[in-house]
């Protein structure tokens, strides 16, 4: 079902109570959207988004598409200004499935702050550790903005800062900023991928191995077929993943097909 707002008889009392707010948030945000709509280059879009978030005291941001059932290839970072070693560590330890800031999305798909989540219930040791590690680089609060698309995928924009403005109006502004940013980043990345197949080409060996990966062979099986060591196979796959900008094998296969490196 689509959107509908029309039970308007019950809105009137609300409207009467409400002062039409004449603060800076509305105008600022609409101006930002207008500027963003004119940009097409990925780098310019990133700069514009960071500048806007800075105004709210949000100095770091990560925007990523969440993997989901049947959509493992959706996983991908659209924009990240958190320290890379923090992200690498986060991924390596598979924090995504334990991070209280992320698991809260099972309860709500509306924006919420780190503090909201901590106030809701006592955290487990691991949950606390994940949040503490996030604070190690000077971030004390942040907003999680879940974005659900019509295709059913979920993206998250997660800006944070030392002492950010997360007032109600700021949150309403950031929700819009998040939605437009995510779409602009995604479109720019898709456009760039489409425009320049300027990925680093695979070597013939990597291509050969990815072809076997694509039909579901394990590293051991590929090693046997090609009469080489399994660790060598793994290392070729890892190199191919880097070249194809993929965190996962399945996505590497998708990318390899898209770039015409392999075919099925």
């Amino acid at each position, binding site marked *: 079902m689509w959107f509908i707002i029309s*039970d308007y008889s019950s809105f009137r009392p*609300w409207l009467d109570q*409400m002062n039409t707010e004449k603060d800076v948030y*509305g105008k600022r945000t*609409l101006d930002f959207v207008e500027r963003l709509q004119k940009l097409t280059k990925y780098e310019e879009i990133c700069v514009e988004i960071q500048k806007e978030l800075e105004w709210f005291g949000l100095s770091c941001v990560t925007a990523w598409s969440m993997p989901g059932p049947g959509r493992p290839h959706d996983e991908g970072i659209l924009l990240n200004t958190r320290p890379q070693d923090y992200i690498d560590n986060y991924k390596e330890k598979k924090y995504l499935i334990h991070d209280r800031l992320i698991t809260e999305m099972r309860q709500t798909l509306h924006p919420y702050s780190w503090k909201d989540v901590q106030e809701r219930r006592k955290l487990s040791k691991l949950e606390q550790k994940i949040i503490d590690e996030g604070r190690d680089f000077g971030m004390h609060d942040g907003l999680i903005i879940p974005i659900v*698309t019509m295709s059913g995928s979920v993206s998250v924009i997660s800006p944070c800062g030392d002492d950010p403005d997360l007032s109600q109006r700021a949150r309403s502004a950031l929700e819009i900023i998040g939605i437009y940013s995510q779409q602009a980043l995604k479109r720019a990345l898709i456009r760039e991928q489409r425009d320049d197949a300027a990925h680093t080409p695979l070597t013939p060996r990597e291509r050969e191995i990815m072809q076997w990966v694509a039909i579901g062979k394990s590293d051991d099986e590929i090693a046997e077929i090609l009469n080489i060591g399994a660790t060598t196979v793994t290392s070729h796959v890892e190199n191919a993943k880097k070249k194809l900008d993929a965190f996962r094998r399945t996505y590497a296969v998708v990318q390899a097909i898209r770039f015409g490196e392999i075919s099925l």
Partner: protein
Amino acid sequence: MIIMLRGSEREQNSKFFDQLFRLRHEVFVVGRGWSLPTGNGRETDQYDVDEAVYFLDINEDGVIESSVRATPTMNHSLLADYFPHLIENGMPARAPDVYECTRYIVMPSRKSRDTIRAAKARLLIALFQWAIKEKLSYLQTVIDAGTLGSFVEMSPKTIPLGLSHPYGGGRGVAGGGECIAIRWPVGQHVIDDVLEYVGWPESPESVYDAEVMRSSSPALEVI
């Protein structure tokens, strides 16, 4: 097939309108529990005026699968009447070349992500084809803030008119939420966005005016 009906032709097209108002009753009053004026199991309101235009997507069995109503904002605007605070950029809610969309229904008989997406796209494309012909500048609507992402996904040219504001007690309250006003500039470029979004090479079909349809295809009368 998408057909367009004018509010002024309610009598001539009573079969369609009767089905539409019954469907609206089913969707909004029964389904959502909204307290709307109803009579005889049909839902109509003060925006069902002669100047209103209706877009209906009708399947082979003559059943309405999706619909939307557009009203000229000069005299008939929900945004101007009830939600003027949603506009924060100073744009007037009423203008002769701006129509407002309300009462969206998207209920394809076979429900899947793809069929729903296609149904929405068909309806929006028809709406914009008509708006281009009418030389409108904008189409506007009030939506639940939670659905903004879907609209920006369909067309990045979607313009917010302000931030979201709570209604009915706000988020977390049954029947409440946040709403936001949006506008689309009327033009082929928005249709192109929607086409790209659903992955269609071109617009599926043009809008059929019920008046023209009736004269050329008597079969429609059977519905």
